[in-house]
Structure formats: C-alpha cells, structure tokens
C-alpha cells in the first residue's frame, strides 16, 4: 500500500547528466516532444499538394485547420494568426499530450528503486521481509491455528516498513505538467513571447503600457500592468500545475482504495480536465498575445 500511495509534490530525480538532474517529469516531457517532432517529421515527408488529402495528411490538415480557425477567431487578422499559430498550437498540443500521457498505464506505476542501499542490499531487504512474513505464517500453522495475532502482524509490518524506508521507489514517468518547474517554464515563455510580440507590433511605445507619465492615474495603471505580468506567470504556472497534479493525486488515491471499475469515471474526468487546461493555457496566451499588439489607447 505504501508503494501504491507514492505521492510527491515535486518531480523526482532519476539520474544526473553533467551535474544536471534529470527528473521523471523532464523525461516524460522529452518523450512528448519526441512524439510531436516525430509526428511533424512524418507529416512533412508524406505531405502532397493535393485537393484530396488522405490518411495522416488529412489528420494533420484537420489539426492545423482547427487551430488556425481557433486563433483566427480571436485575432481576426490573417497576419497575426500566422504569427501566433506556432506558439498557440505548440502550447495546446504539448500541454495536452503531457496531461494525457499521465493517464496511460505505466506512467506513475512503473518505478525504479532508489536509495542509499545498493542493488544487492535491496534484494537482501526484500528477502528479509518475505522471510519475516513466512515465519509468522509458519508459526501460526505450527500452533495449529490459522489465526495470526494482531501483534505478530504489526511486528511484521513494522519490520517491512522500516526496511522500505531505506529504499524509495521512484516512478520513471510523471506528467510534465504535474511538475511546477515545467509549468513555470511554459508561463515564462508565454509572458516573454507576449512582450516580444508587443514590441514587434508597437515598437518601443509598447512599454508606455508600463511606464506612462501622462497622468497620475495612468502611472498607477502602468504599475498595475507591470505587476500583472508577474501575476500572469504565477497564475499560469499554478493553475496548470494545480489541476494536473490534483488529478494525478485523485487517481492514485481512488485506484489504491478501489482498484477496479470505480476509477474509470475519474479517468474520463481527467481526460476532460487535461483538454480543458491545455485549452485554457493556449487561449489565455492567445488573448494576451493579441492584446499586446493593440496600443494602450485601443484597450
């Protein structure tokens, strides 16, 4: 039970490369990135300029057209749409796949043992735990009684728990978006790209939004705008992280309580939440991108 209810708010380190700790969420994110890039490469190689697309090209065109229409519905300007589309599309696809990957069997459940002990020691500990359990059952049989006393069971469990504390089982995969570092990175990218798009569209006058001496009220509004940029990072990061991590915890708890059938509706709910959160992140970024291209007077 202790192994099944493994909940850690931060991602766990699997190994280190050149002093950089590679966590399970980073590994999952790399897998997602690999999947997306492989898909793009596959589409690129099979792309034909035809009026009757089929198969993979049809699917890719459906994705691109849907995203294009989504972005164009907000911007209403083809130039802006083409500029924002790669970012918004990537946000949506990357976050969505990260969210949904956490629902796959094996993600969060396939683990490696990690701790201060060596592999031989792990094996020895596991053997000792099994031996203790067998001993308790044998004793009960010797006494011609099938009832095992609570004291004996508690003693056995305490021994096993004590041994397990020395060893930690770390999931190999953890959804990228269930790690605050990932969501902060995404939020920083979103806010940074917003600034770049703003400067690109309005030039240096974009910064009038933050520093405006035309009136005391506008000066105060500028300060609020500046604060809101930092608030955006926090809001983006914690919204996504909170929702996905909470979903993961919910599934782990429900699955450990009643493993059969009962978790299924929650999986359905998490599929929905995963999509909604990806959409919310992408749409908010899109709205901020679009607002950044409008001068402060237009607001």
């Amino acid at each position, binding site marked *: 039970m202790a192994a099944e209810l493994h909940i850690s*708010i*931060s*991602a766990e380190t699997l190994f280190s490369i050149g002093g*950089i*700790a590679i*966590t399970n969420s*980073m590994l999952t*994110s*790399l897998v997602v*990135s690999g999947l*997306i*890039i492989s*898909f*793009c*490469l596959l*589409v*690129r190689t099979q*792309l034909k*300029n035809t*009026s009757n697309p089929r198969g993979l090209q049809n699917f*890719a*065109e459906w*994705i*691109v*057209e849907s995203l*294009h229409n989504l972005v164009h519905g907000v911007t209403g300007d083809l130039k802006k749409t*083409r500029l924002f*589309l*790669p*970012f918004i*599309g*990537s946000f949506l*696809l*990357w976050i969505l796949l990260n969210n949904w990957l956490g629902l796959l069997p094996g993600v969060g459940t396939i683990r490696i043992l990690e701790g201060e002990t060596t592999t031989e020691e792990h094996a020895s500990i596991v053997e000792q735990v099994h031996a203790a359990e067998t001993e308790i059952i044998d004793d009960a049989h010797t006494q011609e009684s099938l009832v095992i006393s609570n004291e004996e069971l508690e003693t056995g469990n305490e021994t096993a728990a004590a041994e397990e504390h020395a060893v930690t089982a770390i999931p190999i995969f953890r959804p*990228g978006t269930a*790690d*605050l*570092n*990932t969501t*902060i*990175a*995404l939020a*920083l*990218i979103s806010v940074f790209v917003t600034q770049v798009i703003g400067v690109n569209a309005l030039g240096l006058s974009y910064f009038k939004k933050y520093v405006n001496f035309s009136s005391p009220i506008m000066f105060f509004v500028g300060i609020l705008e500046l604060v809101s940029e930092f608030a955006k990072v926090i809001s983006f990061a914690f919204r996504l992280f909170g929702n996905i991590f909470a979903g993961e915890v919910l599934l782990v708890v429900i699955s450990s309580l009643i493993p059969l059938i009962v978790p299924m509706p929650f999986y359905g709910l998490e599929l929905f939440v995963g999509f909604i959160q990806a959409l919310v992140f992408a749409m908010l970024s899109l709205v901020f991108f679009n607002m950044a291209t409008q001068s402060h007077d237009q607001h």
Partner: protein
Amino acid sequence: MDIQLTQILFQIINFSVVVGAVGFLLFKPVLKIFDERAKRIAEGEKAATKAQTAYAEIEKNRKLTEASLKKERSEIVKAAQAEALERKEAIIADAKVKAKALTTELQAQWETEKIALFKKSQTDMAEAVLSISEKVIASTLDKKNAQKLIDTELKEIIKAL
C-alpha cells in the same frame, strides 16, 4: 515544491525546440498547401463565374435566334401554303382542260365506233335477209343473180336510210 532553475531552463529549451519543429515541419508547409488550395479554388470560382456569364450570353443568343427562327418558320409556312394553294388551283384547272379534251376525244371515238357498228349491222342484216330470201325462194341463186339481188336490196336499204 522544489523550483530548480536548471529544470526550468531545460523545459524552456525543450519547448522552444518543439515550437520550432511544429512551426517549420507542420504549420508552415500545411498552411502553404492551404494557401495554394485556396488560390486554386479562387481561380476555379473565377473561371466558373466567367463560364456562367458566357453561358448566360449564349442562352440569350439562343433565345433570340429561336424567336427569329420561329418567325422565319411561320413566314415560310405561310408562303408554302400560298404557293400550294396556287399550285392546287393550277393543277385543278389543268385537269379540267385535260378532262374536257379527253371527253371530246372519247365522244369522237364513240361516234366513229357507232358508225362502224352501224355499217357492220347493215352488212349482217343484208346477209340475214339474203339467207331468209334464199330459204323463201327455196332455190339457190347463181352468182350473177345473187349479186344483182344484193345490189338491188342495198340500194333500197340505202335509200331507206
């Protein structure tokens, strides 16, 4: 919550690579195909509009020609009817003339045949009279007396006629 700058940087780089790949490998070529397809559709629509205009023009001309042909046809029919009437009258007149001539010819032929028949009946009658006379006289006339008798009888018949 363990916030690590290295992990944040790693994820920023990771996501930036994805944005680049998605932009250059997926969105850019697919949008290019969309643009070319939209161009083809616009050209097709333009050609269709042009063809539709041309079709409307042809239809208009067809209707005009059809009306003109109807008028012409009606005139031709009228002229033909008039000509046919004229020819009919001419044929009837010609037939009447020919019928009259034929009637006259037949009448003349009839007269000739009537005379010939009359002459033949005279001869037949003379022969009958001769035969009867022979039986009455009960003797056979010699050739000379017979001829004399015939001549006498013929003269009387001719006189009677």
